[in-house]
């Protein structure tokens, strides 16, 4: 009877197409919106992921990774003095103004890596060597800088020069790193030179990066460093999630995306639920005939469930497929950002199961109430 149920469904072309389209649209909408949301959330943690140090030490008032409260450089020494710290290095991060040869300006995210160790260096060098940062006036720029400058008519190559706050910078390398939240290019240089580029100020240390000795966990180390007055130490993973939660709680981003996702669910329930209801309703007479001919209730239930879940499955496949295709085609540009971890399709699958279950349930209630005797009328 299950084969018959599928034939009844697939051959009812109009309703079948309507059901699949509705559910596909609903999964596409949810999948795409949640993935873009995840993409934006990933943007907020780009610095953390690019630098990748195990423990981050910041001013005690800092709430998330994109907020910099400068500290005195002496804090590096204080962190080094904590028991269990294997290494601790300074990191400078600041928004500075780059001036191109044609006179136009571009805000950049200047990242000053510890001069000795270059801790937090970009992993993916497209051209040049990161070690060349130790050469005079050397900087390494990311792919966003190349792209933004190209749009202004300037091709960045090794050896290209521009100015950061009126001081010369010479490109010795091009790297590929996660794009920053505000889309400003990452410009890497050494910590010491970053302070030269930056406007002079009493406190110029953005972060202290630290790592534990063997046998001490990141969490343990962070807890120990946090005991220092005025400082807060936080592990990489913790900082990642703290930052994302900060944006979820303090910005309108989740609400605007949540609204669209909710809309997707409502549209899905409306279209799929209603069409499926119509489908069952139109077939009631035949389901009643089957009941009269001796089909048991569980047979009819299985038929209705199979019909609901097979359109769900197909719609889901199409929707998630389209979302992935969309994601792939925009991933290269990162406009909008698109990040689809497995939890997204899993979540959409659960929502679709609920929608189909709900639709099937409405159908089943009708079938259960069906008097087989109606077939004689």
């Amino acid at each position, binding site marked *: *009877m299950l*084969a*018959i149920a599928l*034939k*009844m469904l697939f*051959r*009812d072309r109009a309703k079948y197409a309507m059901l699949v389209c509705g559910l596909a649209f609903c999964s596409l909408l949810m999948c795409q919106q949640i993935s873009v949301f995840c993409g934006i959330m990933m943007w907020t943690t780009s610095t953390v992921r690019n630098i990748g140090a195990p423990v981050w030490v910041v001013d005690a008032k800092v709430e998330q990774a994109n907020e910099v409260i400068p500290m005195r450089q002496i804090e590096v020494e204080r962190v080094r003095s904590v028991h269990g710290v294997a290494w601790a290095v300074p990191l400078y991060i600041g928004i500075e103004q780059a001036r191109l040869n044609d006179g136009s300006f571009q805000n950049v995210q200047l990242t000053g890596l510890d001069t000795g160790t270059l801790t937090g260096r970009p992993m993916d060098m497209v051209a040049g060597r990161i070690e060349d940062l130790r050469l005079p006036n050397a900087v390494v720029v990311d792919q966003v800088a190349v792209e933004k400058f190209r749009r202004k008519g300037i091709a960045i190559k090794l050896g290209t020069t521009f100015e950061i706050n009126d001081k010369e910078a010479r490109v010795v390398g091009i790297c590929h790193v996660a794009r920053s939240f505000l889309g400003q290019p990452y410009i890497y240089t050494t910590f010491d030179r970053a302070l030269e580029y930056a406007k002079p100020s009493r406190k110029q240390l953005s972060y202290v990066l630290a790592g534990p000795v063997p046998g001490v966990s990141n969490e343990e180390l962070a807890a120990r460093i946090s005991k220092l007055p005025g400082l807060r130490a936080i592990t990489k993973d913790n900082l990642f999630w703290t930052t994302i939660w900060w944006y979820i709680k303090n910005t309108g981003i989740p609400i605007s995306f949540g609204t669209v996702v909710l809309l997707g669910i409502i549209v899905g329930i409306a279209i799929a639920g209603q069409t499926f209801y119509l489908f069952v309703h139109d*077939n009631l*007479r*035949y389901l009643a*005939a*089957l*009941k*009269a*001919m*001796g*089909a*048991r209730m569980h*047979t009819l239930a299985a038929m209705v469930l199979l019909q609901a879940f097979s359109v769900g499955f197909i719609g889901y496949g199409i929707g998630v497929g389209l979302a992935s295709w969309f994601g792939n085609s925009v991933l290269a540009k990162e406009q909008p950002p698109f990040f689809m971890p497995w939890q997204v399709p899993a979540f959409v699958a659960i929502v679709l199961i609920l929608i189909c279950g709900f639709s099937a349930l409405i159908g089943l209630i009708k079938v259960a109430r069906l*008097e*087989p*005797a109606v*077939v*004689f*009328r």
Partner: protein
Amino acid sequence: MSNLAINVADVVKSFPSGDTRTFALKGATLNARFGELMMIVGPSGCGKTTLLSVICGTLQCEEGMLSIFDHDLRKMKDWEITKFRCVNVGFIFQQFNLIPTLTAVENASIPLILNGVPTNKAERRAGEVLAEVGLGDKLHSYPSQLSGGQLQRVAISRALVHEPRLIICDEPTASLDAAAGQKTLDLLKSSALQPDRCVIVVTHDNRIYHFADRIAEMEDGRVIGIYDDPKDYHHA
């Protein structure tokens, strides 16, 4: 085993209507023998369909005796009645009730599939039965591509395919023209009727009365007369 296929007596069945109940059956008594075509006739609303529904177990009556092939339907559980119907009853409806998205052979194979026969075997057997009723070239036609008479022959094939002992027809000719109606009854008599089977036809179509072996006349929820020869029944 008695020689009565069906033996019902004093059956009462009512339906709620507003605050009161309308009695569709007020003590109907009827029997049918093996190998006979029993026709139930009477004016519209006299309870013919209700009696048919009670006999095949799609409706439960409130009072009376109900013995179908020596089974007391009133003592059986719901699922037992459903199973009983699945094995023993073939249905022919006025509205055909063929599933529009299934072909003739798929429609006709349903009772076998409900009885657990694998689809390919069921469809092969359904094809044979359809060929017997003259639809060998229409196996893969959809209901929308068939005429009323052809639809009723598909319905007959569906009613016979699992070789049930009881075949129940409610106004089988009401949606057909005279010629198709005659042909339908011809078919019922020639292929449905067997010594170990019983065919019950509910109708108020006087053009087919002569096909009956016996006629039961109903009026107002009761069987008011049984005629051993349809010629004896002269409807005004």
